[in-house]
């Protein structure tokens, strides 16, 4: 009777055979087997198997650490002998590589591509996602938004009304403190001329929320807000260095700001950045008693620091509780509103993270593909050198030595790969950042640091070992006798070897198909985004933002007069066809929204969602953007103060307020939640535009002429406007001419965001373009590797079976039949690779779902087109390679045998 005996995991035994020093290998293996059986009886087979495997790995790590292997090779074996052996093996590996330059070049290129591409992508991921900002405990920093659930679309990152902020700050139990802040730019007049500086407006609690005390001086206090003029400022460290040479004595002295003279009370620490910005000058932002009563206008950005031990979910629950408590007290303001707690990390990198993770996964596939390719190449080389190895084995080279020699080769390759690949990765990183969206966060953190180098070294080591392992075991495997007999048998070749090549080829085909499908989906997305009906024509349009200093232009009237003077000057430039002016530029600005009332329709009640984008534009804006007037008319220069107040609405606005098909033209409307309650007549309907993003929904909005703006003293309605210039030629050329017109008119005016409308469009899809471009490159390289792989494997089999083919042809077989036979075995590999690849793609493309637009992750058309193209290419390659079979000369082969 045969008793059932459990067996330890085979891979573990195999690992032990590899690592245990020969003199004690047998007795240790015996001991482990004996203990394995004891464990199996006592604790069950599966636990014993786990134990055995764990101990085997421990041997691997301990022995390599202790170098016991060297010592244990027998007492008294001198170290220098081992060094000599290693040196010899190294030389052998290099010599072998030099002897086959083409083959070696192929391996080096594969290695360099794999390591370089992976390192470059990881470098970016490391800088953007893995580097912590220089803020104490950044993971406790959150931003708190309001959620507007009143409309059809939920807006979950709405700014906060001051009165709500004040209540939250008092009632929450989750935050150490909350702060409001804002970031912007301004132009300062300094003794050495004009300069553009980044500004931060922060409440006194800001410093404790970010957890960063000032380096010199004091933070702001609630007393700093008296009067309208900011009397104190805090300087950013870099600005302090740049302008004051790091002189501590400036603390306490005065400097001129756009808001008059202010005392410098503090300096921020070096390297401080918040939300990826580091302002040069901080102004105190103290909400007045009156502002703190306002629950209607939502305008504050709010940061908070979680108390230690409070999770994000707990804070969210706490804020839900706070809002639920407040809503019954102010139902007209708070019905349909909520609070949303988001980590600072999510705010900064949330948008780019999916694209970077996708690229990291994709480049991982590329690396695996490179590993398989290397394995395949090494395997072929191993085969070619079989006889050499046999002779060595016969001369007494140990099995371990033979394995080591093989691994040495892939190790040398890895070394070359890392030496060429890492500098290549540096260049690749630059290219990658260039392709990335303009607002790619934390760009300054991207650079080769220790972690990237360790990563590069790690993947090189893994690649070398993985690629070398199978060929190494193959070349050293089997008994000596079998090896010698095998090498004598050359008519039909070795079927095990073929199976391995087959597995490798199928794997490579599958990897490359996964990447191809992923790239295909991204291409479809990009195409859909770029052909989306935007409602305007971006080509040939130059844009820039013109911001007027508050001191010189204290009210809307002065601002209006400035543009009255500027626009004709720009219009007069020869290359300018139409000059437009708008308060909010699509894809650049958020729309300012106000609630509207159509005369004759039910009155607005507090809390009802009726706020839509209100744009101040000039008569030329619609022509400059090439937006079609669908009904009625656009604006003319006659629509001025004193004339009939007019408004143009868009199609979505008509759908919203005149759903029954009433004629909007001639109807009157006014804005409720603004000091400007002028009743205006609707004189035209303009087509919808994609304002926030190309993949956003159309939103209702309305346009009024800037010449009829509410001329409030102290109002800033027209303080910051976008010039939109349609040109006859290259818009980038026109930019300079326009700036040269704007600047002389008033040198204190700040011109920013000088670019073309096409750039705004391009930048808005930069994330998708980055993913699409890199996926295409990765997929292309993987495809090339796979095609070379299948070509090589068929060529290899043909070459090996030359004897057989020659014999058959000598006996009358048709050459075409021979080709067909090999084509058939190639087809099997291709079908296998395609099926596995398509299934793999279904899983892989799940991670890119959030990046897709207008196409599903499992889109049958893309899968079919890519799959078919792939099969055709692979078949063509196979045929090219299989054709060699028909060129076998029977007589030559038989003579050779």
């Amino acid at each position, binding site marked *: 009777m045969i008793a059932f005996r459990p067996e330890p995991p085979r891979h573990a035994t195999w690992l032990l055979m590899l690592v245990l020093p020969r003199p004690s290998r047998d*007795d240790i293996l015996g*001991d482990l*087997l004996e203990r394995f059986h004891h464990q199996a009886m006592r604790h069950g087979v599966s636990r014993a198997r786990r134990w055995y495997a764990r*101990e085997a790995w*421990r041997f691997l790590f*301990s*022995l390599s650490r202790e170098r016991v292997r060297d010592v244990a090779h027998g007492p008294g074996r001198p170290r220098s002998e081992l060094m000599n052996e290693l040196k010899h093996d190294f030389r052998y590996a290099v010599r072998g590589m030099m002897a086959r330059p083409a083959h070696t070049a192929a391996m080096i290129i594969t290695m360099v591509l794999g390591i370089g591409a992976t390192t470059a992508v990881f470098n970016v991921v490391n800088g953007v996602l893995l580097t912590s900002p220089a803020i104490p405990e950044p993971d406790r920093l959150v931003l708190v938004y309001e959620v507007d659930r009143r409309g059809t679309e939920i807006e979950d990152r709405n700014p906060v009304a001051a009165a709500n902020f004040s209540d939250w700050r008092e009632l929450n139990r989750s935050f150490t403190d909350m702060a409001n802040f804002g970031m912007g730019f301004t132009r300062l007049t300094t003794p050495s001329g004009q300069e553009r500086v980044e500004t931060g407006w922060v409440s006194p609690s800001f410093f404790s929320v970010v957890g960063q005390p000032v380096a010199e001086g004091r933070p702001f206090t609630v007393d700093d807000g008296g009067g309208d003029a900011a009397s104190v400022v805090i300087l950013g460290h870099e600005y302090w260095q740049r302008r004051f040479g790091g002189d501590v004595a400036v603390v306490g002295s005065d400097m001129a700001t756009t808001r008059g003279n202010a005392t410098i009370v503090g300096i921020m620490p070096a390297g401080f950045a918040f939300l990826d910005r580091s302002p040069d000058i901080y102004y105190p932002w103290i909400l007045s008693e009156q502002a703190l009563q306002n629950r209607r206008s939502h305008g504050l950005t709010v940061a908070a620091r979680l108390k230690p031990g409070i999770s994000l979910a707990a804070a969210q629950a706490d804020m839900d509780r706070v809002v639920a408590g407040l809503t019954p007290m102010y139902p007209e303001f708070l019905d349909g509103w909520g609070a949303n707690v988001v980590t600072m990390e999510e705010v900064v990198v949330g948008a780019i993270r999916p694209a970077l993770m996708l690229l990291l996964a994709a480049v991982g596939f590329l690396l695996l593909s490179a590993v398989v390719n290397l394995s395949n190449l090494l395997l072929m080389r191993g085969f070619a050198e079989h006889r050499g190895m046999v002779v060595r084995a016969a001369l007494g080279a140990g099995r371990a030595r033979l394995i080591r020699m093989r691994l040495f080769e892939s190790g040398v390759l890895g070394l070359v790969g890392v030496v060429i690949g890492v500098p290549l990765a540096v260049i690749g990183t630059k290219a990658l950042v260039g392709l990335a969206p303009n607002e790619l966060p934390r760009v300054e953190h991207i650079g080769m640091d220790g972690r990237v180098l360790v990563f590069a070294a790690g993947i090189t080591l893994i690649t070398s070992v993985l690629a070398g392992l199978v060929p190494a075991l193959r070349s050293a495997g089997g008994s000596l006798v079998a090896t010698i007999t095998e090498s004598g048998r050359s008519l039909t070749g070795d079927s095990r070897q073929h199976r391995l090549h087959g597995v490798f080829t199928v794997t490579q085909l599958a990897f490359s198909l996964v990447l191809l499908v992923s790239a295909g989906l991204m291409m479809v997305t990009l195409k859909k985004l770029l052909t989306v009906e935007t409602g305007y024509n971006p080509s040939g349009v130059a844009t820039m933002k013109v911001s007027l200093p508050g001191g010189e232009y204290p009210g809307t009237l002065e601002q209006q007069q400035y543009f009255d003077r500027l626009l004709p000057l720009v219009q007069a430039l020869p290359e300018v066809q139409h000059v437009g002016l708008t308060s909010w530029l699509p894809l650049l600005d958020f729309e300012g929204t106000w609630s509207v009332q159509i005369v004759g329709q039910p009155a607005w009640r507090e809390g009802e969602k009726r706020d839509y984008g209100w744009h101040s534009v000039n008569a030329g804006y619609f022509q400059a953007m090439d937006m079609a007037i669908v009904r009625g008319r656009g604006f003319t220069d006659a629509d001025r103060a004193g004339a009939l107040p007019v408004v143009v609405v868009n199609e979505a606005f008509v759908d919203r307020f005149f759903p029954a098909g009433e004629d909007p033209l001639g109807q009157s409307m006014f804005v409720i939640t603004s000091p400007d309650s002028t009743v205006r007549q609707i004189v035209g309907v303009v087509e919808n535009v994609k304002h926030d993003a190309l993949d956003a929904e159309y939103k209702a909005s309305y346009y009024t002429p800037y010449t009829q703006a509410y001329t409030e003293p102290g109002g800033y309605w027209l303080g910051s406007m976008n010039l939109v210039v349609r040109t006859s030629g290259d818009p980038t050329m026109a930019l300079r001419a326009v700036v040269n017109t704007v600047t002389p008119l008033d040198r204190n005016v700040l011109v920013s965001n000088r670019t073309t409308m096409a750039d705004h469009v391009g930048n808005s899809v930069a994330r998708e373009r980055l993913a699409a471009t890199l996926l295409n490159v990765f997929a292309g390289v993987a495809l090339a590797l796979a095609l070379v792989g299948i070509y090589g494997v068929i060529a290899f089999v043909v070459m090996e079976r030359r004897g057989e083919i020659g014999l058959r042809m000598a006996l009358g077989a048709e050459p075409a039949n021979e080709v067909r036979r090999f084509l058939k075995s190639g087809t099997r590999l291709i079908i296998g690779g395609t099926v596995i690849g398509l299934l793999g793609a279904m899983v892989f493309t799940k991670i890119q779902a959030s990046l897709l637009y207008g196409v599903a992750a499992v889109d049958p058309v893309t899968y079919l087109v890519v799959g078919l193209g792939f099969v055709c290419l692979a078949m063509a390659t196979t045929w090219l390679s299989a054709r060699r079979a028909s060129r076998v000369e029977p007589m030559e082969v038989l003579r050779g045998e």
Partner: protein
Amino acid sequence: MRATLGEFEHLILLAVLHLGDDAYGAAVIEHLESRTARDISQAAAYIALKRLEEKGLVTSQLGAGTAERGGRPRRYFTVADEGLAKLRSSGTAIMQMWSGLEELLEER
């Protein structure tokens, strides 16, 4: 050569002594595990045994295998004279340090 024994080496030597004629690798480790209630890495134990042998504190010889071991031989260890001397000296040192502290250190 190092003057004192490492703790682990010390334990292994004692286990070999305890087991007498039956001190082959697996038995030594099992003995250690049951007496010290520790999870002992097999690799660490064999490395320690190897070191002890190189230092001349133990000697080893191969014995017959069993079916349970797939017919592989057992390696039996014996504590050499030098090992006994080492054990005695470090044992004395420890006992001298313990003396007078029994009240404090021994579990009641």
